């Protein structure tokens, strides 16, 4: 896991402690190529840098010469822009029995001192992994978000793995949202997410990934030889289920009728899915951006069709 996080270079981490022996011990755990520590013996010295150029990880001693570790943690975590910093507080062993209210501790995890090296290592790595997972996840569907999606694509391009990448979006989602409100819109997105996840999972082959870019945009990855069957199954399932999300009258009619801004009557068909599939065959994709560029080209083609449909990138690798 730490390998993934440090693929783009060593992780920047701040260590704030006045205890030199502790600092040396921590610095000895990971190689410099993995985690690069910046050490501060006082909180005051670190705060400005922390705010102007936040690290990925902050490890702080509970007792600092100029303030408590708790206060420092609160200072960082109370600002939404710094909440992505993984914060681990090092507490003296007695703290465990002091009857404190743990729910008010804003750190992401804590380590008791003196620490055992393996446990310290495990805690930090788990905290980092957990932070990436939870922060990147889409708040509605909890599927992995953009950071994970981009990382996934980059990784697989770099490793020259063959794979097919499906870009899914919903047609006429906006009309649905406008008529029924965003809560009903969220229902439809949750449904779409389940259909995509379970359809992708129903194909064997190891590589199956689903991410939620945001709104009505989703991404999935599958082996090249299963992607066409997966698209067909996904469309059949979505089209069968989507009428249940409309009121009886609209379902019966098979469309939404609404007035546009000029008061003219407009008719929108029930939602459908468009899927643009980009293939990486023998390293045909050179770069992540290429995948999304091809996808948006294909999307236009897919959108020419009123009903649910998919377009697969047929260029030879």
């Amino acid at each position, binding site marked *: 896991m730490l390998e993934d996080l440090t693929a783009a270079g060593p992780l920047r981490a701040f260590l704030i402690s006045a205890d030199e022996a502790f600092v040396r011990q921590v610095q000895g755990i990971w190689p410099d190529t993995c985690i690069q520590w910046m050490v501060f013996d006082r909180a005051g010295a670190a705060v400005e840098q922390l705010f102007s150029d936040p690290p990925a990880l902050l490890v702080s001693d509970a007792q600092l010469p100029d303030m408590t570790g708790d206060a420092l943690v609160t200072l960082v975590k109370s600002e939404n822009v710094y909440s992505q910093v993984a914060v681990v507080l090092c507490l003296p062993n007695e703290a465990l029995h002091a009857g404190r209210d743990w729910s008010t501790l804003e750190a992401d995890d804590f380590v008791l001192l003196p620490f055992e090296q393996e446990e310290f290592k495990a805690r930090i790595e788990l905290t980092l992994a957990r932070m990436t997972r939870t922060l990147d996840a889409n708040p509605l569907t909890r599927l992995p978000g953009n950071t994970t999606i981009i990382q996934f694509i980059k990784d697989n391009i770099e490793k020259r793995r063959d794979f097919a990448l499906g870009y899914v979006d919903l047609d006429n989602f906006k009309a649905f949202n406008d008529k029924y409100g965003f809560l009903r819109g969220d229902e439809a997105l949750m*449904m779409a997410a*389940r*259909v995509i996840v*379970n359809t992708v*999972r129903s194909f064997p082959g190891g590589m199956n990934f689903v991410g939620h870019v945001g709104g009505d945009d989703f991404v999935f990855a599958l082996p090249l030889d299963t992607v066409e069957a997966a698209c067909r199954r996904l469309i059949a399932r979505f089209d069968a289920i989507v009428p249940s999300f409309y009121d009886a009258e609209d379902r019966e009619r098979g469309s939404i009728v609404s007035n546009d801004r000029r008061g003219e009557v407009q008719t929108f068909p029930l939602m459908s899915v468009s899927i643009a599939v980009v293939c990486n065959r023998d390293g045909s994709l050179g770069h992540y951006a290429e995948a999304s560029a091809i996808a948006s080209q294909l999307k236009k083609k897919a959108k020419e069709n009123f009903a649910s449909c998919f377009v697969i990138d047929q260029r030879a690798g």
Partner: protein
Amino acid sequence: MTQDMRTAYKGRVLAVKNLPTLPKVLEEVTRLMEDPGTSTEQIAKVITYDQVLSAKVLKMVNSPIYGFPGRISSIQHALVLLGFNVVRGLIISTSVFDDMNKAMAGLWDHSVGCALACGEIAKILGMKDPEEYAVAGLLHDLGKVVSAVQLPEIKPELEALVRARDITFLEAEKSLLGFGHDRVNAWLAEHWNLPPNISEAIAYHHKPLSAQLYTKYACVVHIGDFLTRVYEFGNGGDDNVPVFQPHAMKLLGLNQRALENVLDALSDAFLEAADISFS
């Protein structure tokens, strides 16, 4: 019957946790799920032979955690949305009835029969979603199962009363409990966020014209229940035929000829079902 007792019964009924079922369908679904080549359609088809498993699947998919409560009334759709993992979990956590309650096997057959009848009626009337009418038919007596499990001391009394006075199960329930299984159905449907079409159908199958939004669903289940009793397919808990409301046929536009078509289709469907009966 005092209001307090009714509230107490309702509380006990809704506290139902692990509703057991009969072993046959459970075993068949388990077997199917072990084969990676099994399709969702195959599993859905078997699950629609078991009212308890069907109810569990719909309860799960309509629970708020999935984000679309009250939307799904098709077993097939529910399986797609839940996925194999979750369905497997549901199957593993379902236990089998003990010997005493195996006597309820007739009720499983009656429910399957009613599902078939409702599906046929909906098809012949040209309804859009015959499968969902079938689901409503399958679940129409779920309240009887839940009451039997949650109020075990009442069950022998009910059976004795039905025998002694030769009345319907519904009449016995009303005289002993103060409410019938139709009311239990309404409580369960609300508590489990079942979609309004299923909810109204199972809550009003004995007085279909009182259903407000999905009167047609209630009428189809009312007629389906009646026909299943007439054919004596399975057993609904008594030897009587429920009071029939002819207005239900009128409301559906089910004329003599269409009814004859339904009866013909049903004779075949019941014969076929008797062969693959799971109970």
